[in-house]
């Protein structure tokens, strides 16, 4: 039992980083992790026979994160103050690229570099709150779009726009801060 407790506690830093990426609010992230650790210790039997403690804990944490997102969206706490339209900067009036994206040389090699993920996280932090939340629910937690719309209380069209904005902003950010030559 003591050994299990120590192993669970040893995953705290990883879980906190995971929760912070998604929730952005340090206190909410710490709460979600704390609830996860308590639930894990209370439910040790649920882990019995599974091979990977981190994967099991992350599964519990995802549910705690979803609860936190639900609470925040019920309170109307997450809004983007300036929903600026990136299209007007990216494209001219006829819908052509203002500046066409150049090719990225060997992007897969970046996936092997720790520094790349540090840049990616910085880019994620720069996204407006609601845009980031929709994107992280989609790409980090693996939600279907319909569920994201429901949790964030927006229409499917608005949901796609949020995801589009996140992706184009991240593309620009990676272009400028990682793939520039």
């Amino acid at each position, binding site marked *: 039992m003591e050994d299990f407790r120590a192993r669970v506690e040893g995953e705290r830093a*990883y879980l906190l980083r*995971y929760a912070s*990426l998604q929730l952005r609010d340090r206190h909410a992230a710490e709460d979600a992790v704390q609830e996860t650790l308590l639930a894990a210790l209370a439910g040790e039997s649920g882990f019995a026979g599974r091979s*990977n403690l*981190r*994967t099991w804990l*992350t599964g519990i944490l995802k549910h705690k994160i979803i609860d936190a997102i639900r609470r925040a969206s019920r309170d109307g706490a997450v809004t983007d103050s300036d929903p600026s339209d990136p*299209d007007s900067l*990216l*494209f001219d009036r*006829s*819908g*052509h*690229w203002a500046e*066409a*994206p*150049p*090719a*990225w040389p060997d*992007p*897969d090699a*970046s*996936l092997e570099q720790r520094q*790349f*993920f540090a840049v*990616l*996280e910085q880019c994620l932090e720069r996204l407006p709150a609601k845009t980031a939340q929709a994107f992280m629910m*989609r*790409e*980090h*937690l*693996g939600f279907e*779009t319909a569920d994201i719309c429901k949790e964030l209380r927006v229409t499917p069209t608005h*949901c*796609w726009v949020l*995801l*589009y904005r996140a*992706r*184009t902003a*991240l*593309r620009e950010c*990676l272009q400028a801060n990682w793939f520039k030559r």
Partner: protein
Amino acid sequence: MILSCKEVTHLVSQGLDRHLGFGERVRLRLHLAICDGCTNFKRQMDFLRKAMQRLASPD
């Protein structure tokens, strides 16, 4: 009907979130065949998804 680059980028993004219809896929492919900028954009969107999956993986 010819899609603009702007419309193509929206479709490419939505293609990551929903199943595109037959007509949408055809028009997308026709545009990508002749547009390097949008082809790069699409590759980068696919790469972004891969990078996020790696970021979310527990290892």
